[in-house]
């Protein structure tokens, strides 16, 4: 079995796990279920058992517990041995799906995303349905379990992807001083426009472009790009993921930019790991140039240009693939802090996963729902007006959770807030 050999090659990486258990208390599935097989250490132990030939990849245990993993990688952040769990999970999942074909809905989404045509049709339909306002009305009115629960969640997610109006303070007080019309050019960047992001969150992409330009970055159009392949990698379809990654690596390399920018945490994490995924130098070089939008604006000693006041109480929820996978932890906060009069309120247990994890809420309705409710409850203790988070999946998951709880709190991308502040300053 070729794939088993691949996992076996990772024996060393598995061996780094000293079984200390430090990762248990941060794992959302362990928090919910209390079963060590649903903890990072337990999953690694199952992987090791497969390598040792003591467990079959088609066994219920291997399938069930690897499938239940959210891929949030909170376990990596706390691991004192630096176990690369995310990397191992992708290989372990590849082995799992090879051993047993996953059910249809699980196969459907990655297949859809890999095909440009099908993807635009699907996302286009999504926009149409969203435009009717029905999803918003339905979300929170449907039962939370069974098929209707799934529909309700999907509707809530769709509803949460629409652009938000940010009502705060008066719009009138436009800034008197115009921004520097041409801020000194800092460099050239290319934006990963993404599939869900361009399909449902075009407004986030627009906001990203606005803030980039206002801060002196030249945004280069890169046409040959496509889906990043994160969804595929996470679900064990490594070959497909590699194919998609190759497309992007060559497109972005050809563009010859200083940085490739991502505004979706999951996609950014994949781009950053394309070196490991493809094991080639071009990919490695491209990966090194990748930055999250918040890093480019407010990381590495930079500070965003200040816009007009935006008197909102904002709770920032770090997406796992930004916080744990990319280890980008402070720049989103710095970005938000740069907005005058914006008040940041901390979410208790912010670094815990929201339960979004792709379509986890649909495939693992009960567990995903429980993880999600923990997040919703935590957000509601903050008394915030708006939640900010830098990943479309999280925006939709948290939004759906809040809608289901009957709350009207909006969930936006941090750059949307910055862009709004610039808009009020009359710069765009």
């Amino acid at each position, binding site marked *: 079995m070729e794939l088993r050999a691949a996992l076996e090659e990772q024996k060393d990486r598995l061996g780094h796990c000293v*079984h200390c258990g430090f*990762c248990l208390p941060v794992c959302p599935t*362990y928090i919910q279920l209390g*079963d*060590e097989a649903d903890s990072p250490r337990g999953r690694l*132990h199952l992987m090791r058992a497969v390598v040792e030939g003591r467990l079959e990849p088609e066994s219920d*245990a291997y399938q069930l517990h690897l499938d239940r993993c959210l891929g949030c990688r909170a376990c990596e952040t706390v*691991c*004192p041995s630096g176990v690369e769990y995310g990397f191992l999970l992708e290989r372990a999942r590849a082995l799992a799906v090879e051993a047993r074909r996953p059910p249809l809905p699980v196969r459907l989404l990655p297949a859809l995303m890999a095909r440009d045509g099908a993807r635009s049709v699907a996302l286009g339909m999504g926009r149409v349905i969203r435009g009717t306002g029905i999803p918003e009305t339905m979300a929170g009115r449907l039962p939370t379990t069974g098929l209707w629960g799934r529909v309700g969640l999907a509707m809530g997610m769709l509803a949460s992807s629409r652009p938000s109006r940010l009502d705060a303070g008066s719009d009138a007080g436009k800034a008197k001083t115009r921004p520097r019309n041409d801020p000194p050019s800092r460099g050239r960047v290319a934006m990963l426009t993404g599939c869900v992001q361009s399909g449902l969150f075009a407004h986030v992409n627009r906001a990203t472009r606005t803030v980039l330009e206002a801060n002196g970055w030249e945004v280069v159009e890169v046409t040959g790009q496509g889906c990043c392949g994160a969804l595929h990698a996470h679900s064990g379809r490594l070959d497909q993921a590699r194919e998609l990654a190759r497309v992007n690596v060559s497109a972005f390399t050809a563009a010859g930019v200083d940085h490739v920018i991502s505004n979706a945490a999951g996609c950014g994490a994949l781009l950053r790991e394309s070196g490991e995924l493809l094991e080639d130098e071009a990919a490695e070089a491209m990966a090194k140039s990748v930055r999250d939008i918040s890093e480019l604006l407010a990381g590495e000693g930079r500070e965003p240009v200040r816009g007009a006041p935006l008197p909102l109480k904002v709770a920032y929820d770090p997406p796992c693939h930004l916080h744990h996978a990319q280890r980008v932890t402070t720049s989103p906060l710095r970005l938000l802090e740069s907005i005058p009069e914006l008040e940041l309120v901390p979410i208790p247990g912010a670094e815990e996963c929201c339960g979004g994890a792709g379509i986890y809420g649909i495939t693992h309705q009960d567990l995903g729902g429980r993880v999600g409710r923990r997040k919703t409850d935590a957000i509601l203790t903050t008394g915030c007006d708006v939640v900010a988070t830098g990943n479309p999946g999280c925006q939709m998951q948290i939004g759906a959770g809040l809608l289901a709880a009957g709350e009207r709190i909006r969930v936006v991308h941090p750059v949307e807030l910055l862009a709004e502040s610039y808009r009020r300053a009359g710069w765009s």
Partner: protein
Amino acid sequence: MSTTLPLVPSLPLALRGKLADVVGDDHLITDPDRLLVYESDGLTQYRFSPSAVILPGSAAELQEAVRILHLEGRAFVARGAGTGLSGGALATGGAVVIGTARLNRILEVDPANRLARVEPGVVNTELTRVTRPHGLIYAPDPSSQSACTLGGNVAENSGGPHCLKYGVTSRYVQALTVILPDGRSARLEGASRGWRGPDWIGLFVGSEGCFGVVTEIEVGLIPEPAGVRTLLGIFDSLEGAGRAVTAIISSGILPAALEIVDQETIRAVEASVFAAGYPTDAGAALVVELDGVEEGLDAELELAATCVRDEGASEVRIAQSDEERTALWAGRKRAFGAMGRIAPDLLVQDATVPRSRLPAVLRRIGEIGDRYDLTIANVFHAGDGNLHPNLLFDRNDAEELARVEAASREIMEVCIEVGGTITGEHGVGIDKRGYMERVLSPEVLHAMSEVRSALDPFGLCNPGKVLPDELPARAELPNEPLPALDAGPIEVESDRHAAALLAAASREGVSVVIGGARSSGAPPGPHLRLSARGLRGVIDHSPPDLTVTVGAGTPVGELQEALLASTQWFPLDPPGGGATTIGQVLAGGLDGPLCTGYGRLRDHLLGATLVTGEGRVLELGGRVVKNVAGFDLLRLTVGSRGALGLITRLTLRLFPLPAVDRTLVWTIEDPLEAARIGMRMAATGSPVAALEWIAGEFGGESPSDGRLPVGALVAARLHGNRPSVEAMARTLEAAAGVGPRVLEGEESAGWWERRARREGTGAVSTVVSTLASRAESVAEATHRWVDLGGRASLHLVGGGVRLDLDPAGERAVDRARALLDEVARAGGVTPAPSPELSGVLGVFDPAGILPGRWRESWS
């Protein structure tokens, strides 16, 4: 070492059904593949798959499950987070694992009384996270604290870097609810809850899950230290670092933590992704952490830095911020993980040696490593003498594995040879059973085994752990004639003498009273009265180790006198003062005002010799500061009031004499106002040595005209260096709003001694447990006692009031009794009924000749 048990007896279907009915299908795991993840804990040398795992969601479910397993004769073992490093939570012989992950609620936080009540699955750091907003923390901080559970901590009596100053888990547990191996529930409470009898909590803490499953834990919290300073010293040699530790300890500072990492460890850390910036050519690095009153810390830091420099440090770094503090600790905290990166396998040892022997032991460990051609990296709690040699190897290399095993054994032998022990904090579990005979006498092993059988006659609760399967043969009991009865008390001269007398009494079924009539009353009929008064004097004092061994008949004052020359002392001010003997304090579970700042005698008791009612001599504990080798029979002797036998000598951990000893006394006319002021002072969280509300006539304070005194005193005792004592005094004075009378040095000590001498002398003399938050109502009730002519002293931190009275006439006695009830009601503590654990006493006193058996209650 590598042990796998492939064939696990599976669970019969009927039993499966019963368990599922209790915990629910989702929380019963029986698929052998899924059970694989439970085969190891933090120690991966051993693999034992359980036959099932249940994850109860409530204490009631857990109890019901244990009851079923007991009826079916199925072995079971509790499991917290599985971070244990001795294989304690493994399911040997196909036992059922009872996981506590779902029992993770913090049931109550009571800031006013500095208490928290939790379920066993609560993670250690989670508790402090919740209590910190109240300015309180849970002190024991095992390095695994972000993951390990309080249930596991209780079972292992876990320690941590800061236990040098704050003590281990046992010091903080105030009450436990335990599901005993037969499914009965027992509520165990400590002295602060009104319990007067053997220290059951002490016995259960550290019992490694062999005496039942803990379902509820009540712990004490401490105010978060106001300030902290961290220093890193880099040394060319390990010896230098070791000498610096000795110098710091001798300078009179009590650091919060003293940790050393050696050259191999530094190299491992620096070679890993966790490089902490320690120089790789250094021989050792020493982390010193000081905490306490902010104002006193700079002077202490200076002193510590001087010690470090004088002992040849090539570099001294001092943290100026929280980030820098984290950075200085990094090399220590990341050691374990870093080693996982440089070697496929890792064996962590956990031995404790008297601190003064550290340099010699380390040298010999180095030699052993060289001889076996192995990399041994040392990380240790240097202040406690607790070593963690890490042996790095590759399990696939059979020959190397054999060398690791041999080297590991030799290291243990070296530690034992110098008076150390085989485990300081990780427990015996499966891993160290083979060494038990090397550190414990056959007598002690048998006693431990019998206690376990008394609690778990069918051997169902965590079998195959702690004790070796075969016990060595024990000595014959002495067979000497019983002396004439009623010839007055016999002063015991030696262990042998006591053993002969007790064995004879047991044989003849003659009741025995130990100590004065005051402590245990008198049994019906003819009896033998034994006294330890003759066992007087210091037997061994090791100033660099801060330990002393004394005869049980030594008066406290005499002990302090003997220690003075080395500027050390044992903080103890029991009723009766310096005239009370150490043995009385131990057996009576006595304490005084100083327990507020220093803890009780039980918290610093390292060893004792107990001659049991049967006439067996048990050497319990040892001379080392941390010791979890086997069940804690030592702690059981505390407060046992002669129920286990006669204690002939004790080993105690000492303290450096404080540079400044100051007492502040406020005389306040309204006793209730005095209580309120005292409570305000307690609420400041100042680390006072003592803080008391005192009323009634007592040594030196009563007016000379013979009238009863009015009002009450609030007295605070402050220990530390001058700046910290002054800062504390300012804080307390601000809380009081008025100025006190100030006594310092001998005057201060003398004042408390005079007061103590008057305590415990009344014809009616007792302690009533009260909640600290009820100080005002307690003061109100107590003042009526004072009106009757009594004396009273109330701990404002922690609660508890000592009452003495010489009632004139029968009516006064009745009135006094009624008042005691009133005080108890006001105090808000309702002691739980005595737990049914008399079987344990039978181990020590099979013939039932001691007060624990012939007396009905523990009052």
